[in-house]
């Protein structure tokens, strides 16, 4: 099955007619996944959007429950709601890989987050492969591949003028079934691109375990502003805070994105802060991305999308950090040398 890029518009209109559809597009000077509709120009040429698609499943601010008080009686009602089906069309393999990470966090290990689950089940993900990975892209050496997205419901393989359309799940199959009128029979040779930028992750998760006190962290600390940019543009960062909005006789509890880069992230009642220093915070971020997460979910929390490298005000470059870790001698050897 082929989808001519030129004809994609008609298909999008059809999908949008039946459910909410999100496509990569420019948005007032930035770019993100926006609801398709009048005036929206999809940007399938964008490598990846400035803001990741994670807010479609895990909104920046999400109300958990509301309460209202009438004198002595307190009424509490959950803000949970089933979500209508929606389609995310044209996300990149790295972003698809990020959804796998979020799934692991919110749906596995015996804990299921109903708010996330409702959206996840309502979502149909249509991934589009990358014909020309960007200079900051390194997904294929850390988490994914520019030309495949195994967990996507539908895969669109870039073949130049058209996409080769392959359903990969039941949801995908029924979706493609419905797309038929807009698809064409025939074959095309998908472009199997590879990233120029490579990292060697092989030994990194293990090595990191011995690098808690490595000077690398203070070096990164010197460079880093510890702002939250990387965590907010990261498609996999899922840390959140729970806070409340209290009014006179009503209020709501909500969760909202938080960042391990912020000092108040670990601030404790009584004023103690276990991660008061910059280096301890950056260490936590990379340890989490490159080893702690692996221990629990057996995958890297970095998908190599390159967003953090692109937007960091201080040009902190995770690929360079991985290189440096890969190049460092394992802790035991260091100790051995120390003893020698």
């Amino acid at each position: 099955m082929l989808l001519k890029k030129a004809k994609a518009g008609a298909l999008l209109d059809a999908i949008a007619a039946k459910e909410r559809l999100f496509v990569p597009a420019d948005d007032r000077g930035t770019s993100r996944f926006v609801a398709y509709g009048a005036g929206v120009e999809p940007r399938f040429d964008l490598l990846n959007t400035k803001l990741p698609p994670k807010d479609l499943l895990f909104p920046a601010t999400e109300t958990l429950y509301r309460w209202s008080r009438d004198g002595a009686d307190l009424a509490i009602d959950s803000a949970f709601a089933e979500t209508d089906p929606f389609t995310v069309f044209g996300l990149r393999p790295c972003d698809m890989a990020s959804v796998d990470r979020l799934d692991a966090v919110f749906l596995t290990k015996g804990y299921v987050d109903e708010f996330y689950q409702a959206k996840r089940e309502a979502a149909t993900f249509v991934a589009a492969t990358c014909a020309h990975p960007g200079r900051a892209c390194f997904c294929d050496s850390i988490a994914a591949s520019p030309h495949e997205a195994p967990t996507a419901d539908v895969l669109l393989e870039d073949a130049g003028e058209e996409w080769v359309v392959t359903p990969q799940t039941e949801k995908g199959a029924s979706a493609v079934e419905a797309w038929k009128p807009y698809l064409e029979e025939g074959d095309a040779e998908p472009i199997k691109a590879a990233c120029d930028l490579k990292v060697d992750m092989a030994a990194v998760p293990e090595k990191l375990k011995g690098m808690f006190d490595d000077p690398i962290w203070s070096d990164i600390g010197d460079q880093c502003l510890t702002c939250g940019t990387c965590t907010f543009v990261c498609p996999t960062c899922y840390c959140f805070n729970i806070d409340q909005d209290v009014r006179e006789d009503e209020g709501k509890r909500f969760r909202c994105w938080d960042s391990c880069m912020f000092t108040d992230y670990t601030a404790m009642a009584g004023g103690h802060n276990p991660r008061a220093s910059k280096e301890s915070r950056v260490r936590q971020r990379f340890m989490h991305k490159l080893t702690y997460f692996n221990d629990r979910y057996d995958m890297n929390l970095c998908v190599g999308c390159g967003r953090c490298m692109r937007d960091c005000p201080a040009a902190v470059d995770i690929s360079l950090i991985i290189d440096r870790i890969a190049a460092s001698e394992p802790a035991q050897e260091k100790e051995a040398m120390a003893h020698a």
Partner: protein
Amino acid sequence: MADVQDIIRERAAALLSSGEVSAVIGWGVGRFDDVRFPLVVKRAEDAGKLVFDASCVQMTAKRLLEHTGDGKVALVARGCESRAVNRFIADHQLTRDQVYVIGVPCPGMVDPATGETLKRCAECQVRNPVVHDELVGDPVPEPKPYRFAEVDRVEAMSREERRAFFDEMYGKCIRCYACRNACPCCTCRECFVEQDKVGWQGKAFNVNEARYYGMIRAFHTGDRCIECGECERACPMGLPLMVIMHQQVRDIDKLFGPYEGGGLTDSGPDPLRTYKTDDIEEFM
């Protein structure tokens, strides 16, 4: 600028090996050759990693505060960094003898994305260091370009349009606090947004909370702003943050002036920390 870079490297190596300073703050090259980042060099043999050219977009002075304490620290300072040094001293965050300023007259930096002069440089009023222990390279002319064009544009709008302008700006803000962390005026140990005081800064992400953060931060820094534009440069969402800073600076100049901005000297008091009994009266 190549020779300037060489001198910076030499001086850095000399200062470090002589033990006069414990670190030198400048710029290094990233993985891609158009990428620069704030580099803190602590060993003489690393001095060669320092670079200085038209791509050094970051205003690095904020790093000073993290390294003073373990001896004197050298800072490669252009006009903007040098004003930041004055700012720190005036705010009692630094004493002059804790920093060794390697002054570098600045021709203005180039935005790698567009290839044009970086906006904060295009609005720069002080290209030559206002304070330095030594000067590398010859002083450059001070064109003092008009920096209020954006303010004029917004002021010319109707109230509703101005409101819409700021709604859009704060609507796009992701509250990463990069502007705050890059700002030489933001030297609080704990920012007001991190207070758990009722009603100070809500954690939710919406235009209201972003506006509360944005405007209060702007007010907290308005009468001390050195107009380096680093907040705007650092903003990952490319928000025109300087418009509200320039607007305040201009108002302060009009109302309590003459006032050319903060950090030109290392002593206060700043405009909102003082008063004149004959200040303009408009609240009768």
